[in-house]
């Protein structure tokens, strides 16, 4: 009996391992068709479901790599992610002596860029506010106010994301569009609603890490005559830095894979945004909207996107975990 129970528990624990490996292998094999067709060029190809002329003699296309500059203030992001835009030189394809025909091409650049940009906008919006809330809850507010607000924030983190999406589409986006101009469904509104969604989660875990600062440290600083801000800046932040960064990365991981809050607002158009108020698409939304109808190469390409998203979020979350572990040891 003892042995059976032990084996059983080992088996269930290994199930986690099996499922994760299973996800990886399944996504990989389901996207094999797209991988062999497009290779890694998939990541930098802006076309989706588009007929592209190819030479029948030589299907490998001549590509010219042009570094793609994101609109003005996003330059740092472009550097960071090394987003390259491989522009196909269409003219090269019409060689006089080759017969041209068309193939349907799928590329992941637009959803990948859309995913990264919405996440960045969301974090840029949520980060300062979440920090403010965390500082307010752990240092400024008296206990009898901080406690109920803290619970309210934790409860808000539990609200299904689809509700954030609906609210965003019908109430928030019209106001943003009035203020900034442009479309109601856009990169900006999607990013902001995503930011509102991760806000309670981020605030709650940031507050938790701030609360781990020992009172003795704070009290000794106050005794030295430090102001509250100085205590926050010089004692609490350095002490809980690792936890705070870890929680930011966890929020980032959550924002990357979020489907429903973004699906209502991003516009679901496969085109690269030239302005922040342009509609575009993200990987989860591309999957949500196209999975049912897709087949063949299109479906395989969606699995390829899923694989890319899985790898990105796996990397981001493992990084956060490693960072945590390194900090706590």
């Amino acid at each position, binding site marked *: *009996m003892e042995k059976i129970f032990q084996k059983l528990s080992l088996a269930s624990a290994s199930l*986690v391992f099996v499922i994760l490996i299973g996800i990886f292998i399944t996504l990989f094999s389901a996207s094999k068709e797209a991988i062999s067709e497009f290779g890694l060029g998939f990541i930098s190809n802006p076309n989706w479901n588009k007929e592209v002329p190819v030479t029948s003699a030589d299907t490998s296309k001549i590509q010219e790599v042009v570094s793609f500059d994101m609109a003005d203030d996003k330059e740092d992001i472009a550097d960071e992610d090394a987003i390259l835009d491989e522009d196909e030189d269409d003219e090269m394809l019409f060689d006089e002596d080759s017969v041209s025909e068309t193939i349907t091409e799928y590329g992941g650049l637009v959803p990948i860029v859309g995913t990264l940009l919405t996440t960045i906008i969301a974090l840029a919006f949520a980060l300062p506010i979440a920090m403010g809330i965390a500082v307010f809850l752990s240092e400024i507010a008296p206990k009898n106010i901080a406690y109920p607000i803290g619970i*309210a924030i934790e409860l808000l983190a539990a609200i299904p994301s689809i509700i954030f999406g609906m609210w965003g589409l019908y109430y928030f986006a019209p106001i943003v569009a009035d203020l900034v101009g442009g479309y109601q469904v856009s990169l900006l509104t999607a990013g902001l609603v995503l930011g509102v969604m991760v806000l309670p989660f981020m605030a709650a875990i940031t507050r938790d890490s701030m609360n781990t600062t020992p009172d003795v440290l704070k009290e000794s600083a106050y005794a030295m005559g430090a102001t509250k801000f100085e205590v926050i800046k010089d004692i609490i932040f350095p002490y809980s830095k690792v936890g705070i960064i870890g929680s930011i990365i966890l929020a980032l991981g959550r924002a990357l894979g979020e489907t429903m809050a973004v699906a209502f607002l991003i516009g679901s158009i496969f085109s690269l945004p030239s302005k922040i108020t342009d509609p575009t698409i993200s990987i989860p939304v591309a999957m949500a909207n196209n999975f049912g109808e897709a087949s063949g190469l299109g479906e395989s390409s969606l699995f390829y996107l899923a694989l890319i998203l899985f790898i990105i979020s796996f990397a981001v979350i493992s990084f956060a975990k490693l960072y945590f572990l390194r900090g706590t040891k």
Partner: protein
Amino acid sequence: MRLLINKIILGLSTLSAIIGLSFLGWILITLFIKGLSSFHFSLFLNDLIDGGLRNLIMGQFILAGIAGIVGIPLGMVAGIYIREYGRGKYAQLIRNLSDIMMSAPSIVIGAFVYAIVVIPTGGTSGFAGAISLAIMMLPIVINTTDNMLSLVPKELREAGIALGASKYKVIIDIVIRAAKVGIMTGILLAFARIIGETAPLLFTSETSNYFSLDLTESFPSLTVSIYDLANEPEEASRDLAWAASFILTVLVLFINLTGRFITRNKKR
């Protein structure tokens, strides 16, 4: 000067807290106003095809319930392994992987189930939806069980062993009993989380306008139907979507509060 900076920063922090909270308050108020104005008790009596939500609410509960029946025992036993049996690297690896799985994008889990269940069986089904939710639930339950067992003092285990009980007896009769309340709370929170999930159901169970208990067909789902209804141009559909969202939110908050209530009572 220092005092001035102090005042400014604290003011900014309070201000951002107010901004953040007012956003969240705005959502809740919208949800309650829109939801309550479209809410009617007949929603619980009719199916979606007749303008009600009965089949959807039932369907969502059935999907999440099956996910729980599969995910909770597996997750608990796996959590027991990590905390009680596992030694060294393998248990730590599983613990880390389970944490990573907990934050894995839910739509990717949907795609995984689509590939291994929906494609081979030839169509969307309630089973596929329940499997996706079970996969989502598993790591949450593992994590809770692991954490709650770690709070049980070692002396309890030693006392059990000293009395001659075998290890699994000690675990089931002593350790689990001591951690019962915490684990139950964790399971309630896990349930609250998966019952509001949409993305993993979109192309696994889909949804249905009719009342159905047949898990081999497309299965009614509240969240997927909210997504469909909210995108309809007619005002009536959107109002129904708001009513459904309101019911869903009340449900999720109710489960969450119940979980908290249990923990608080225990502490006293």
